[in-house]
């Protein structure tokens, strides 16, 4: 289904979606993030990209898995905690981030199903937004199999035509959601169709970063595992978690018990984001740490994204959003590292 929605009607469409929790880009100070919108009138899609990707809505940084409480009989009562089932809409998701959600979806189905993610994803509709201009000078979606108007992971793709949005449904959920806009939307005319196509093809040409020979990256990386490249490139690394916490596909987590009361025992088992760049990520209880230096941790981040995941799933664990480059406090640039990896001479 393809429709056109006047920009001024975006809020009235949102107004008809009362049964959904609506998430949209929201600016707080200088920082954009996805927030639960209480007032539809505040929804704006005129934004570059958020600091933290929309994964935080479907895979929150803190997730209570279950609660436990010691019983008087000396046993333990365990109560499963599942995400609430209010349907959600996320407006304005960029193509890179929607692809990120699609990749997370695949990961959540691998081996044991991640019921928390799946449950949320199944009740969420993604109404994404194609990019006119790359939101960041570090965007490189086209180098990793994406595009500024990719449909992967979207339920609806919206394209900004100036005074209106061009809506394309991608899934059944998308068709259903667009149906709710009946009376507000119109059928696109030929000019609008042509405009949309032109915006899409132009947007691809505006991406500044281009990594060549990505099909050879797996081979290149397999040859430089044990080289000094990683020492060199990680010298300035601070071992903070910005690159992976702001990544739309990084999904590692830690599980801890948060104790509310010790006698009788009562608490919650909680999953929180973890991060391969933290030194304690791979710490063994023996005191041995297989990735005890920055070089091996940077190598892991790059190898996982462009080699291991590639070998297992035939795609990269990176959508080219550029956040890790833009946000790195010391200017470590994964594209630069890949370029060096390709030409590294042992």
């Amino acid at each position: 289904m393809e429709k056109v929605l006047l920009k001024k009607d975006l809020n009235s469409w949102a107004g008809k979606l009362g049964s959904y929790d609506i998430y949209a880009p929201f600016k707080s100070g200088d920082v954009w993030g996805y927030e639960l919108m209480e007032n539809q009138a505040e929804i704006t899609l005129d934004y570059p990209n958020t600091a933290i990707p929309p994964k935080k809505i479907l895979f929150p940084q803190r997730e209570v898995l279950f609660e436990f409480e010691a019983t008087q009989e000396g046993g333990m009562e365990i109560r499963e905690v599942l995400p609430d089932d209010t349907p959600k809409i996320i407006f304005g998701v960029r193509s890179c981030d929607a692809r990120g959600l699609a990749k997370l979806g695949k990961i959540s189905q691998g081996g044991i199903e991640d019921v928390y993610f799946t449950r949320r994803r199944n009740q969420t509709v993604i109404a994404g937004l194609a990019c006119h201009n790359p939101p960041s000078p570090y965007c490189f979606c086209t180098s990793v199999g994406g595009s500024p108007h990719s449909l992967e992971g979207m339920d609806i793709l919206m394209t900004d035509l100036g005074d209106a949005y061009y809506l394309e449904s991608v899934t059944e959920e998308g068709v259903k959601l667009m149906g709710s806009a009946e009376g507000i939307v119109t059928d696109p005319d030929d000019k609008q169709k042509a405009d949309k196509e032109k915006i899409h093809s132009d947007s691809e040409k505006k991406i500044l970063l281009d990594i060549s020979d990505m099909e050879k990256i797996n081979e290149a990386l397999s040859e430089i595992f044990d080289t000094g490249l990683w020492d060199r490139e990680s010298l300035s690394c601070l071992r903070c978690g910005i690159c992976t916490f702001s990544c739309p596909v990084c999904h590692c987590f830690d599980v801890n018990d948060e104790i509310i009361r010790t006698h009788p025992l009562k608490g919650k088992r909680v999953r929180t984001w973890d991060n391969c760049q933290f030194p304690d990520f791979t710490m063994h209880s023996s005191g041995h740490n297989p990735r005890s230096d920055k070089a091996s941790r940077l190598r892991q981040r790059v190898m996982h994204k462009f080699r291991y995941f590639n070998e297992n799933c035939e795609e990269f664990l990176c959508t080219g959003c550029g956040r890790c480059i833009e946000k790195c406090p010391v200017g470590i640039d994964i594209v630069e590292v890949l370029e060096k990896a390709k030409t590294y001479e042992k």
Partner: protein
Amino acid sequence: MVTLEELKDNCRQILKEGKVKYIIGYKRKNGQYMTVPAFLDRIEEVDHLVWDPSCIYNLVRYLRDEKMRKEKEKEPDTRPVGVIVKGCDSRAVNILIQENYITRDDVYIIGVSCEKSGIVDEKKLTKKFAGKDIRKLDFAGNGKIQVTCGTKNSVVPAEEILADRCIECTIPTPIVFDVLFGEKTDREVPDPFKTIKELESFDTTRKWEFWKEEMDKCIRCYACRSVCPMCYCDECVADSISLAVKPDTTAEEKAHKIRWVEKSPVISENFNYHLIRAMHLAGRCVDCGECDRVCPVDIPLRYLNRKMEKESLDHFGYTAGMEPEKPTLVSCFREDDPEEFIL
């Protein structure tokens, strides 16, 4: 003013003489006007060295990496590491010496004076020159910065684009150095604690509301801790696993490690983490402002540390990192120390 060529010559000289293992400095980020930290161990790499208002980093933080590296090596190269420091950074070196974390011989200090200027706040800069193709920043002397956009040069008063900490800085010249570039400059700052003045005037409820909102933003990426030259503990109370675990640490010792701060990024735990950090920096923070700069969600962390600095100064007349041979603020007692706040 600092002459870059003189600075480079000195760096080439000390590398050539083998006086230092390597030099930590600044170089241009690929094709951009901002810099990144540079680790120079070959003479020809010194060509890329930069000193301009985009040198935002406190490079003293990397002395911790050097120390950790050295501890792992069987026969470490014990020559000093060269490090380029601004006024604030030099005080951080002093504290590391004062706290016996490093010795004076571990480091060859190349001081650069910010004189009447300082380093930029990239956000202020890109706002002021929005839409312009910024190519280069230069010190223009006398409290001015030259910004080159395309082929056009504009000279602006430094305080329009300087980082807040530089505007409030009274010590622009390194305190400790082996070699100094630029002039020793005294700087009169009418109100060095201007940043926190408004916040101090809030009543408790309003302060609580302010910080609650800020703490809610924290994603616990620990960039503030990771970038801080003073956060060098092997074992941080914020971590649920101790990095100080050794093969001979007993199971009992491990089991008894207290988890002070939960990993969950909720307001109470975020507060806990940031307040612990602020307390541990009292009398140690040199206001290099790095924690504030790196925060990906813009929590004004400088407010916390600046307040602790003000308390140290007001109550004990103590400014961190000025006299490495004297005891630190929290490890000394004087009979005339104020005690009206002791309950």
